[in-house]
């Protein structure tokens, strides 16, 4: 079979690209062996699709190409599966992810399959172009091109984290009567004196100060606020039990300055770790706003 080398090389590259990207989202969405198996297999299908695309183009089998493109649209289903799965698990989380975060994760899973397709497509194209230099050179060139493509695409897909758009610093927790006040922003009403004491003793709080108008608009998204609460809580651990609503991590916004404050009682009192956790929370794709790209937004910026 004339194209066997190309197809094997390209499929392998696409699969490896998917595996590489699967490794990196360990924190975002803990995968278990089953989750890995599912995503690797879907990635394998994608890689194979990308791989056979080039031979069918060369052979001018345009009907085959159309079918392959149709098959690629199946990957949209991946997003639905991820979304419904995470939504079902939402009830089992002490601190909910929020629908915006779930949507973000689902999109990432869908997009990564397309990246695997692109990678195997690139590998197949390079492999066919270097055919006349011998099998070894062909394999080397195809794998190198695939590695470059996967690395580049992954780099392009990497979104900013909270630490990139905002300054994060520790802040004070105090009480105004029963009202929890964090960095000058009133939070919730904590009724029980014992709970108030625990907040003062064990609580940690940060201010998230947006660097510009864009960041301010992005941080004003409720889904983003929930994502910060969920991720910070999942990274440093949370001191709460089912039904202990007074210890729920709290993110509030200061309407004056647009800064966010977050307060929680971590399972271990470590301010450094908490700051690190908050700054590593990803900025949700769906939360990003760019008012500075509009005339009105720039006018607001000059005034402020």
């Amino acid at each position, binding site marked *: 079979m004339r194209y066997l080398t190309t197809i094997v090389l390209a499929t392998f590259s696409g699969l490896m690209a998917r595996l590489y990207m699967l490794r990196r989202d360990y924190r975002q969405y803990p995968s278990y062996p089953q989750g890995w198996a599912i995503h690797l297999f879907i990635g394998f299908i994608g890689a194979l699709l990308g791989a056979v695309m080039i031979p069918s183009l060369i052979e001018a089998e345009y009907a085959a190409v159309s079918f392959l493109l149709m098959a690629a649209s199946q990957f949209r289903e991946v997003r639905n599966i991820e979304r419904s799965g995470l939504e079902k698990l939402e009830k089992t989380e002490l601190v909910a992810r929020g629908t915006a975060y779930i949507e973000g994760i689902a999109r990432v899973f869908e997009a990564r399959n397309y990246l695997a397709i692109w990678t195997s497509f690139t590998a197949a194209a390079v492999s066919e172009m270097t055919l006349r230099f011998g099998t070894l050179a062909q394999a080397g060139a195809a794998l190198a091109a695939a590695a470059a493509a996967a690395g580049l695409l992954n780099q392009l897909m990497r979104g900013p984290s909270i630490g990139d758009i905002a300054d994060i610093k520790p802040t004070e927790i105090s009480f105004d009567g029963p009202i929890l006040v964090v960095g000058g922003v009133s939070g919730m*009403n*904590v009724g*029980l004196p014992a709970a108030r004491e625990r907040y003062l003793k064990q609580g940690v709080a940060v201010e998230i100060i947006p660097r510009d108008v864009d960041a301010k608009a992005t941080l004003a998204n409720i889904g983003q606020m929930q994502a910060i609460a969920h991720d910070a809580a999942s990274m440093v651990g949370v001191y709460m039990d*089912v039904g202990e609503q007074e210890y729920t991590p709290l993110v509030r916004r200061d309407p004056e300055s647009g800064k966010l404050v977050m307060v929680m009682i971590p399972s271990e009192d470590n301010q450094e770790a908490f700051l690190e956790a908050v700054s590593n929370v990803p900025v949700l794709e769906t939360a990003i706003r760019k008012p500075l790209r509009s005339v009105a937004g720039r006018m607001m910026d000059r005034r402020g």
Partner: protein
Amino acid sequence: MDITPTNQILAVITTSRDRVGGSAPIFYADSVSELEQMAVYLSRIFMAAIHDLGNEVYIIVKH
């Protein structure tokens, strides 16, 4: 599916009988310490938060 009311006052606990009324269950306490104790018990039963209205009136609200 279990249905739980949220953002509703599930119970009111107070020391003074003339301050509260209405449809939510009202519990009376004789002292502030008893008030707090009752609030803790009720919040654990309802798995809800305790809020302090400042005038020795506590409410239990599920969020």
